[in-house]
């Protein structure tokens, strides 16, 4: 999650909220708004649903703050609530959109996109909407079981063990799914990103 959350005493804030200073909850969640929404959107693939689910997750976190046990980080707890909220909405929708055979074939080999060289794409490229859209589409198009683990581990920065716990699957299964998710993204995105990045971008302008 965001670095801005790291220098705060969240356990003290939570104790204060539980003691009646409920308004402090606004400040407690502020660093996490974006990541909770990102997670909901990557899971639900629809902005309106994601906005709704993210808001509901924050409301549930507020109502259930007493149940938060200090063993986990608040951010991890919040992410679990968001994951459950998104999962229950996916179940309700029962979108007949079944995931591809890739999902069923967890033991099969994955082949990445073959390249001969890779020119580093700097994070500044994210200022371009077309680059952001490519990444968004690639993430939201991952089959559901791969998307979950990818979002937890690589976007929300949970550890493999924390991701496994949040998903209720084994650490070994988490690693396998994560590996497949990453290679699926590489296979799809590497050729696309190569194409949208201008080849001569390192040359100075005259």
């Amino acid at each position, binding site marked *: 999650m965001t670095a801005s959350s790291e220098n705060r005493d969240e356990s003290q804030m939570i104790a204060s909220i539980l003691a009646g200073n409920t308004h402090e909850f606004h400040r407690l969640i502020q660093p996490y708004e974006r990541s909770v929404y990102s997670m909901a959107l990557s899971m639900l693939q629809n902005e309106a649903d994601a906005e709704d689910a993210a808001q509901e997750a924050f409301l549930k976190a507020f109502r259930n703050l007493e149940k938060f046990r200090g063993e986990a980080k608040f951010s991890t707890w919040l992410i679990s609530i968001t994951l459950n909220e998104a999962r229950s909405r996916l179940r309700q929708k029962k979108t007949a959109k079944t995931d591809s055979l890739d999902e069923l074939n967890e033991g099969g080999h994955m082949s990445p996109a073959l390249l001969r060289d890779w020119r580093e794409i700097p994070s500044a490229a994210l200022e371009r909407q077309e680059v*952001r859209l490519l990444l968004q589409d690639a993430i939201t198009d991952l089959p559901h079981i791969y998307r979950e683990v990818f979002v937890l581990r690589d976007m929300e920065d949970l550890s493999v063990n924390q991701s496994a716990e949040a998903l209720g699957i084994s650490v070994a299964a988490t690693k396998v799914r994560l590996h497949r998710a990453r290679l699926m993204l590489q296979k799809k995105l590497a050729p696309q990103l190569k194409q949208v990045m201008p080849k001569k971008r390192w040359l100075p302008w005259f």
Partner: protein
Amino acid sequence: MVLECKHVWEHISGYLDGTLDAAVLEDVQKHLEHCEICSAILDSTRNILILTADERVFELPLGFSEWLHARLEAEMQGFTYRPSETTDAGDT
């Protein structure tokens, strides 16, 4: 042990997470030294993970924050947590 490319691909994720066994890591590294394809696959995967982890990928919709905090504010009106010492008091 000399690894073929397709075996190296199986270890890309573990390589990036730094969780490979020492012996496997050494074999993978040896392979990467002379295989430009596997090196490019590794570099591109690492690059893509950095990009997808960037918080700018998914932007908050306009007004999200205002609406969220307004809903929370409404929720907070008259809301009290049950005091932990007297868990059976405070039932409504």
